[in-house]
């Protein structure tokens, strides 16, 4: 499309339209979009969705999947977090790009984002939803997946980098980062399960610490005690155990755990990466 004066100003006008994000506080997919908007310095209205009682607005804006997050901008409703992140780059190309500029590097970033959602995320979800030998197999799968990422950091595509995006965070940092906090939370909730050993995955570990130290990440990721309470509640529901586990849960966590919410599918809640 040619950059005529007319469509440049159309694009500029479109960029000025207000942003609204429908999300859920414990959804790492939602966190990805919140973090990206903060990185780009874009103002947005946030609407919290009760996933046990989805709003008419959400069902209207995302009829295909009925999930959060959904970004509303200039009359468009955009579901799917990785689609949204790329949209933000397309609509605001000159502000803090999330994707690198070189086509081959962009392809690598997209490949690993897909890996995160297609392989690593479901593997972590499987660990959380299972017990015994089934869980052991799922843990091994997580380790295999983390080992692949560790190898890229050590000697592959991301060798020597502070972040996957280079000196600054990029799309893959946002995708992996918003979700990797669940690894430590799940380890805490499930005794004896080791997911992200600093000895086994030193570079991944270091990257994660660096990511979590960023101001924008701290503003986006919920406090760990809320995440723990949420995870305990979900674990109980998934395994149908009533009142089991660590009794040190705070009153608010217990309330969340016992709230009348229908058992969510693993992909519906924050059991993702």
């Amino acid at each position, binding site marked *: 499309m040619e950059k005529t004066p007319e469509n440049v100003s159309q694009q500029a006008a479109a960029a000025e339209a207000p942003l609204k994000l429908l999300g859920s506080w414990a959804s790492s997919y939602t966190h990805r979009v919140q973090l990206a908007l903060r990185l780009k310095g874009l103002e947005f209205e946030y609407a919290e969705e009760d996933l046990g009682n989805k709003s008419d607005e959400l069902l209207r804006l995302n009829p295909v999947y009925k999930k959060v997050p959904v970004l509303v901008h200039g009359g468009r409703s955009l579901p799917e977090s990785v*689609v949204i992140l790329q949209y933000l780059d397309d609509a605001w190309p000159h502000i803090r790009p999330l994707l690198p500029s070189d086509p081959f590097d962009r392809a690598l970033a997209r490949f690993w984002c897909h890996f995160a959602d297609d392989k690593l995320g479901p593997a972590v979800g499987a660990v959380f939803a299972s017990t015994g030998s089934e869980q052991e197999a799922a843990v091994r799968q997580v380790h295999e997946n983390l080992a692949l990422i560790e190898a890229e950091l050590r000697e592959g595509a991301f060798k020597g980098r502070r972040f996957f995006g280079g000196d600054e965070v990029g799309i893959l940092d946002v995708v992996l980062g918003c979700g990797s906090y669940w690894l430590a939370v799940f380890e805490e909730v499930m005794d004896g399960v080791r997911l992200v050993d600093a000895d086994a995955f030193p570079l991944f570990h270091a990257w994660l610490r660096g990511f979590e130290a960023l101001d924008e990440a701290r503003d986006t990721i919920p406090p760990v005690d809320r995440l723990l309470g949420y995870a305990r509640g979900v674990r109980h529901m998934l395994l149908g155990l009533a009142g089991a586990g660590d009794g040190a849960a705070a009153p608010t966590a217990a309330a969340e755990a016992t709230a009348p919410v229908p058992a969510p599918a693993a992909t519906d809640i924050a059991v993702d990466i």
Partner: protein
Amino acid sequence: MAVEKNNNGLQLLGFWVSPFAQRCHIALAEKGLSYESLEQDLSNKSELLLRANPVHKKIPVLLHGGRPICESLVILQYLDEAFPEASALLPSDPGARAHARFWAGFVDTKVFECGVRLWKRKAGSEPQVQARKEMVEALRTLDAELGDKPFLAGEAFGFVDVAVVPFAAWLVSYGRLGEFDVEEVCPRLVAWAERCGERESVAKSIHPPEKVWEFVGFLKNKLGDK
């Protein structure tokens, strides 16, 4: 379009019936890019394939100047970005691009994955019956999205059409495995498939539905639940 030396340095590792490989063939043809097509033996994977895609060991893989790009939708976007002078697959409007990516992803997660369960799980078993319901719903959704538009991308054939059209050859198989009438479930999609089939890029790249059905029989035999 000038005839490029060395096929633009492009090689495509593919497999004849794979819809994911076919997306790439169609994209390359649409963009008028010559390339070397390297058919792979998936029962005996080559060193080249294993080195090019060590993570998944799958086709398609595009090699450009020897550097590998994996995942069909990643390849399609790479072709647009590495060859900007050749006609674009993705539209330029950000919202339209998001729409294209969304629906391409939908086909992967809702149609293809469901299709695997349809042939893999034992016919009539609970998971297979569940897969039938999901496939019908997915095809109805896609049919509704197409609506009265000539193409999924709108007035002109585009990225999302390239992403979806290889699955058109699987509709007959899905209908047989799922015991539903394809014409009744997604009539507009059927007409769209015929329309797309008139394009040279598509006609050259996809195989007839009966050939796909034959292949499905082979898959069921080899990998399906007994």
